[in-house]
Structure formats: structure tokens, C-alpha cells
């Protein structure tokens, strides 16, 4: 399998669900306890009012224009996902989804430990200034 046939993603908990960022947009990950309150929660960036996740990890996110940190739920893990398991958002979902940032859905085989679709977030879509 060549490099273009897979995508490395960082999985984390947000809004009570498993979500992902491309690993290329995550510069570092560290324990997030005792951090200054100015670090935004991932739910704030996603513009969701859903139940918050217990935050325990801090992700340093980098985009083409910004670098910022955000708090996400543990565990934070790195996975390599085959391209054929990454699907564009279905058109009605793209039209009606209220979250900011989702770009695609990762749908792993049913026998995988994460059979539920995972929202793949594109941090470029957060549109925030450096934090």
C-alpha cells in the first residue's frame, strides 16, 4: 500500500464521541490538567453544546495559517486509516450538520473495535486566530 492510500489520524474524545484530526495537523499531545483556562475546549471549536467530555489531554494543532491548542478527552491515539475507509460527508449531512470542522467520515469495518462512523475534523475549518 503506498503512502497516498492511507492517512494517519489522531483519535480523541469530543462531545462524548470519538473524533479524529489528520495527524499532519497535530504537532504535539500532552497531559492537559492544570492548564490555564484560556485553552479552548474542543467542543467550543466545534461549536457544539453537547455534553462535554472530561478533558485530560491537550493537543497542539497546526494549520496553514494558525497554531493553537485545545483540550480533548482521552485516550488520544494515532491510527493509520486506509483511504477506502474515509468517505466524503453525504450531501444532506454536509448541508445540515451543525458542527464546525467536519470534513469526512471514517467508517471502519464492522468487526473493528470502532465500528461507529468517526467524524474526521479539518482544523483548517475552525477559522480561529492563534490562541
Amino acid at each position, binding site marked *: 500500500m503506498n503512502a497516498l492510500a492511507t492517512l494517519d489520524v489522531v483519535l480523541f474524545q469530543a*462531545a*462524548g*464521541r470519538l473524533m479524529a484530526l489528520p495527524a499532519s495537523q497535530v504537532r504535539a499531545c500532552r497531559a492537559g490538567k492544570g492548564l490555564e483556562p484560556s485553552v479552548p475546549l474542543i467542543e467550543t471549536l*466545534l461549536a*457544539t453544546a*453537547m455534553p462535554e467530555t472530561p478533558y485530560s489531554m491537550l493537543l497542539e494543532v497546526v494549520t496553514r495559517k494558525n497554531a493553537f491548542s485545545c483540550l480533548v478527552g482521552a485516550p488520544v491515539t494515532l491510527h493509520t486509516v486506509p483511504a*477506502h475507509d474515509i*468517505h466524503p460527508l*453525504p*450531501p*444532506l*449531512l454536509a*448541508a*445540515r*450538520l*451543525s*458542527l464546525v470542522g*467536519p470534513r469526512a*467520515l471514517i*467508517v471502519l469495518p*464492522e468487526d473493528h473495535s470502532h*465500528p*461507529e*462512523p468517526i*467524524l474526521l475534523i479539518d482544523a483548517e475549518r475552525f477559522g480561529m486566530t492563534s490562541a
Partner: protein
Amino acid sequence: MQPTLDELLAQPRPSRDEIVNVDEPTRKWVLFELSGHRFGLPGEQVREIFSRAKVFSVPGCPPSMEGVINVRGDIETVIRPHTLLNLSEVEPDRASSILIGRGAELSSGIRVDRVVDLVDLPESAIHPLPATLPQEWRPLATGVLAHDERVVTLLDLAELLKAYARGMG
């Protein structure tokens, strides 16, 4: 002298092309129920019908979107059209089905309370929209017909999906 039966049967027969087909063209319809009302979708807009399918919820969806299903590698949304049609919500049960449909470059699963029938109907069976048709249904409806002594409102899936994508329902 008359030909024998063998000679008669051996004679060339008129070509089938000479037979004039007087049957009226028919169109397939998928008939279903939503909150006790009957509706129909053109058969060519319905790709598949699932009586059981695992629907995965997606955070951030409107309440009328159940989530997504995996149709042999294609990910499709599943919407409940009840709100769009101003109908009371019915919780999915064993009788409910998901119609996978496509129209206007949009595709989605449509949750229906029950599939009633798949029928071939001539164009003459379809009547114009009656004045009594609810206002919310008019932009989505193409006609009505009678089936099993019930009125069936025929919908255009393309219009339904476009309306949903615009934020209705």
C-alpha cells in the same frame, strides 16, 4: 383445393412488429405510510429498500436525521421526512423501512413507517393535486391516486431532498 393443416402451419406468420400495442405505458411506484398517511415515490428514484439496517448516529445532526448507514461501502444519511411534511413523529419499529433514493444529485435513506406496496400504474391513474392537500405537501407532490380505497400522495424525491438540504424539516 384447401391447404392441409400442415401447409397452413408452415406458412409464414405475420411479424410481431405488425401487432399494435394499445397498452398504456405504466410507471412503477413505491407506496408507503408516514403517520397513517399514504405516499408514493417513483420507482426509478428508489434504489433499494432495507427493512433492517444499523443506523449510526452522528453528532451535530438535526433531530430529523437519524444518522448514517453503510450501504455496501457507500455512506448514506437516513432522514425522517415527518417534520418536513408536518406529520407527527413515529418511532421506528419492526414494520419501518429505509428507502434508499436519489434525486437532483442528492441521495439519502428515507425512513418510512411501513412499505405498503410496489405497483405498476398507468399515467391515467394519477390525478392532479386536490385543493384539500396540505399546504406543506404541495411543493413536494406531483399528484394523487387511489389505492386500496385510500388516497396516496405521490412525492418527488428530488424536491423532497432539495427541501431538506435547504434546512426544511
